[in-house]
């Protein structure tokens, strides 16, 4: 799975360049600040998870006055986000541009062959990780993940219908992983957004979904949907009761339920290539302040996010590993574009 011989080299080069930049900047001394309006690019449409988070950040920055120059959110969602990523890749050295990422940072280049990867940009910080939960309709007889898995196996190929957002992206990757574990094919139906998927599951047009917590929580509280398990290595930390006295922390992990699959979606921030360490540090500082606001904390709780925060080397290592995981998952599922 891992062919890591090239990564030490990359990081050495990076470290060297960071050192060089640092040496240069100590002589300049004055702290860097954006000089004009900062564009915050969302490589997805309006109203989705990444868009919500970007606008949340914009609102918090504005309300608490965390930046001197304004920050504007711009959606560039064409070609499963390729439009936004290519824009940032092509804006080398522009320090007044940021981009928030979804899993399409990894999936879009693999699935479509559009030429970009995370190393074409400057990583700033991981803001949070979005969890995935296995959902079924509350009226269905499946009380646990193992019930549903037995039903998948008993029903035979294409009997069970999994709804998800987009094609060859995170939802379908998880579906493929489930298929590989159970050995039975499911019918994957792609929809435009997570809200659509949750509603289609409530209307029983599909039999299950792997919605993010924030996309399905309202339907769970209303007793329409039932969570089976969470695709993470440990249970969610949120102990407040949500529905029927159950909390996020009561949902077993899929591994506990015999489905050894883990998947988390990156919500991170990047800059165009060629950004200096000072510029990166400035944005890391702003984002850290954002994370400390009560609004952000509430938002994390509502969406049951994994609040991991990473920067620098740690973040880069995480990205390398995540890229490999995606490549291997997508190769196994046959989602990689032939070029």
């Amino acid at each position, binding site marked *: 799975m891992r062919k890591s011989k090239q990564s030490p080299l990359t990081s050495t080069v990076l470290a060297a360049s960071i050192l060089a930049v640092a040496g240069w900047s100590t002589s300049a001394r004055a702290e860097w600040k954006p000089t004009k309006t900062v564009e915050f690019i969302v490589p997805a449409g*309006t109203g989705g998870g990444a868009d919500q988070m970007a606008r949340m950040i914009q609102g918090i920055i504005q309300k608490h006055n965390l930046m001197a120059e304004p920050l504007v959110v711009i959606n560039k969602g*064409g070609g499963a986000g390729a439009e936004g990523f290519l824009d940032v890749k092509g804006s080398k050295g522009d320090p007044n541009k940021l981009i928030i990422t979804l899993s399409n940072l990894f999936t879009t280049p693999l699935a479509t062959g559009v030429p970009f990867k995370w190393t074409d940009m400057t990583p700033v910080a991981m803001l949070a990780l979005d969890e995935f939960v296995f959902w079924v309709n509350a009226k269905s007889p499946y009380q646990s993940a193992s019930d549903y898995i037995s039903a998948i196996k008993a029903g035979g190929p294409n009997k069970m219908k999994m709804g998800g957002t987009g094609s060859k992206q995170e939802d379908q990757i998880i579906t493929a992983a489930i298929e590989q574990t159970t050995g039975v094919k499911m019918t994957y139906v*792609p929809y435009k957004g997570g809200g659509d998927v949750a509603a289609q599951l409530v209307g029983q047009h599909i039999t299950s979904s792997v919605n993010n917590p924030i996309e399905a929580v309202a339907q769970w509280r209303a007793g329409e949907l039932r969570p089976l398990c969470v695709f993470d290595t440990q249970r969610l930390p949120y102990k407040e009761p949500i529905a029927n006295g159950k909390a996020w922390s009561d949902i077993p992990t899929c591994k506990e339920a015999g489905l050894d699959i883990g998947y988390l979606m990156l919500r991170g921030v990047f800059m165009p290539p060629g950004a200096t360490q000072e510029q990166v540090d400035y944005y890391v500082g702003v984002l850290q302040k954002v994370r400390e606001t009560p609004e952000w904390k509430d938002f994390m709780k*509502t969406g049951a996010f994994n609040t991991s925060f990473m920067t620098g080397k740690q973040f880069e290592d995480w990205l390398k590993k995540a890229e490999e995981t995606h490549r291997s998952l997508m190769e196994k599922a046959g989602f990689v574009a032939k070029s």
Partner: protein
Amino acid sequence: MEALSSLIHGFAVLSDPMNILYMFIGIFLGVLIGVLPGLGGANGVAILLPLTFSMSPTSAIIMLSSIYWGALFGGAITSVLFNIPGEPWSVATTFDGYPLAQKGRAGAALTTAFTGSFLGAFVATLLLTFLAPLIAKFALQFGPAEFFAVYLLTFCSFVGMGKESPFKVISSMMLGFALAAVGLDTVTGQLRMTFGTVELLRGFDFLVAVIGLFGVGEILLTMEEGLAFKGKTAKINPKVVLETWAELPRYWVTAVRGAMVGCWMGITPGGATPASFMSYGLAKRFSRNGARFGTGEVEGVLAPETAAHAAGTSALLPMLTLGIPGSPTAAVLLGGLLIWGLQPGPLLFVEQRDFVWGLIASIYMGNIAGLIVVLTTVPLFAAILRIPFSIIAPVIIVICAVGAYTVHNALLDISIMLIFGVLGYVFKKLHYPLAPLVLALVLGDMAESSFRQAMLVSQGSLTIFWSNPLVGSIVTLALVMLSWPVISLFLQKLRSPRKPDAPVVAG
């Protein structure tokens, strides 16, 4: 009744003077956003969303939804005056609105558009007030097959009735489908017809195409025909509002039909744009004036506007009760709800009474306020047509270019707009209809993806379109609509074989 007492509670929430102030600010900004093509309601709301964080959720949603109402009203203005639809749902308004303006009746067209909008919204709000929980359940019955059936119905009610030759209609529509297919295919995740270019990744945006086809195309035509607005003889008289109102009751059937189509499309959630097309198509087919549609009929403005506004309003219902946005703007508002810490969904009506009923009350108030604001401006806007063409034309081109750029912040879109402008000019010259192209472009990819989703679900069997009474009746209705010219011809022959002046509807 419980709904009534809740509504009164809602008006009490609204009586806070700050909320009223926010409402008027919202309406005003909305009209402005609606007038500027490209800067759609969704963009407008998205831009202003972060500004509302420091307000209470109730005030915030009142202001943002007022922007939405304002934009719904404002979209009609440029459609009527310059043939430039400010919003996707006002494309159908240009079909008769612009010819009316050219006849010197811009004031009548605007008044009709605004009044129709108001009526549509009012009916939809009544629905929202009294039937919300019931209707929310109904929307859940819509799976991919049902969505496709609704899109099919839209196409069928609009096509098969033009005066142009069927071949021209079909080629125009196919071009629209081809353009709609450019970009990412959501079902397979593959890129289509981008030819390896970055700029084509996002596909052809409907608004950019429409600004070019209608706005720029019209300027080119006018330049050829003598550099003058035909509508410059427009009477500018405040009484035009009252005169038009006196005329409107004649078309009550069209208005009721438009409101029904709109509510249906908003809830399902097909959205305001298909609703406006469907309503126009139906009005053209079933009205006694049907044959004269497209030459400047007041009824042809009333039909799409009523439906668009009814749909725009009822689109809030699935958003509030299910968390599914019925329109792009509703999607942004939905994001707003989450940010303010409210969870849209079945429990919102129970847990957030102040918020929900404050919002519903604000729809009533917002639409009344909006109607007053826009009606007072009718003479003002109509007067714009008196400005000499050589002065106003460059201004229009600039507004078009800014609008096309704003949609995606992409410079190439301006060139695409110009190309579409030439295309629109050529189409007009060769008497090809533009409407089928536009309809295919806006609904093509939605119809395609719901069809393919349905095929995935049914494992490739077409019987899914008759698998339950709901989808079966919509599909059957659509097919009847499509073959209506043949059917009506047959019926006429059957009834009165020798009636010489029977209107013949060409396929």
